[in-house]
């Protein structure tokens, strides 16, 4: 049963991945890619990593919907409804794709995978988390703070109307002066 589900998802994932480059609309390409990611989430669930699997589903849906909007926005025709193609620099990308596939596939076949002797732990997600981050927790925490600070400062730098634009140079206005009134 598990094997059948795995192969179904493996084939489905590759097929929808190919579909990304075969369809002629940005919306279809984005949602084909989403489908491919969702198929890839199921094997994670098969490993009893329920939390990670469902999280992949959640994040990928949100991400690809936002992605669809941005991709369509950046297209030549902003309505995005004209036929388009996802294939550029065909020879180069083919070489890179085949090369990456060969390297990864050789890796899969050559690595001496550990044999499962003990029973599966009760909470594999916890185990995986500890294995990945346990000894590097301090780094992770600092990194998290640094990333968050970067996000905040980027937004502050990029915002085109700050509080001095809204409330005056001395912050003297009671109500902000906005292009669209009624904001907080």
């Amino acid at each position, binding site marked *: 049963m598990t094997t059948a589900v795995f192969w179904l998802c493996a084939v489905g994932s590759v097929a929808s991945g190919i579909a990304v480059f075969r369809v002629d609309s940005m919306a279809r390409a984005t949602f084909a890619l989403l489908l491919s990611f969702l198929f890839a989430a199921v094997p994670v669930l098969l490993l009893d990593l329920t939390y990670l699997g*469902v999280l992949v589903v959640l994040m990928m*849906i949100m991400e690809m*919907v936002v992605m669809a909007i941005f991709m369509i926005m950046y297209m030549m025709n902003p309505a995005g409804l004209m036929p388009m193609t996802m294939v550029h620099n065909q020879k180069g990308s083919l070489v890179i794709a085949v090369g990456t596939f060969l390297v990864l596939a050789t890796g899969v076949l050559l690595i001496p995978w550990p044999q499962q002797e003990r029973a599966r732990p009760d909470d594999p997600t916890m185990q995986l988390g500890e294995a990945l981050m346990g000894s590097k927790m301090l780094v992770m925490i600092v990194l998290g703070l640094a990333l968050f600070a970067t996000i905040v400062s980027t937004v502050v730098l990029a915002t085109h109307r700050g509080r001095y634009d809204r409330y005056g140079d001395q912050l003297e206005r009671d109500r902000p002066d906005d292009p669209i009134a009624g904001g907080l």
Partner: protein
Amino acid sequence: MVETSQWGALVLPALLLSFAVAASSFNAVLSARAAGARADLAHPVREFAGLLVQQRRRTLAADSLLWRAAGITLLLAAVLASLVTPLGHWAVSDLSIGVVWFNAMEVVAWAAVWLAGWGSNSAFGLVGGYRFVAQGLAYELPHMFALITAATAAGSLRVADIVAAQRDLWFVVWMPVAFAVYLLSVLAMAFFGPFDQPVGREIAGGVLAELSGVDRLVFLTGRWLLLVSGAAMAVPLFLGGGAGPVLPDWMWSLVKTAGVLAALVWFGRRLPTVRMERFTEIAWIVLIPLTLVQALVVAIVVMP
């Protein structure tokens, strides 16, 4: 304790659908009263039959595949979200990460509504779809923090544990902010008033503009089911699940769900429509800090 029953998967859609029909009838009655007309309880049934026989309207160069997929995904997601919602002490599935599952299935609405707007190749539809995604960015974070607050208090993402943690005191009593934000975000998620801009009248119905016949029926049913699933999940998360005197626990679950649903429909109709860019400001400047403080308070209280 929650017993899981595979057979529940057969009962669940029927149960959700009856709630959806009841809520839709209630909505129709309120509409009739507001218009000074005679209350018409059978309105949803008549609309159902009407849409069933209505011929499909076609638009030029529509992306039918994505357009059809939209309604079906919305419908499926609403039902799947309720897999982890217990009815008394039964649930179809008692996942260890029930809350995350519920959240993941709700997020499917983002894709579904945007696709419904996109698929018709109509400007109004597309505007409606974009509006929903903007609204999604506004409601999703406060919504997640509200869910996390309930999970933090129980120390578990399993819905059964969250219900069990409320044996002495319902979460609604000591985390009212999370409860209120949760209900607001359920209204926004089902783009029900005051968050109905994605289907606003000024853009000719938005994502619904070109939907007709069976497609419209499927999409609207999905929307009502989404509201029902959200209301039903409020019961185990904040209202003690099936806990209550005299009546059996499944009965309490039904009664509480009906109460929450009726309150949502009534409240949603009371307020004027909120523009989504304004709601985004409110959500990010007011609701997110509020829910964060609520989560902090809860975390301090339950800290071992």
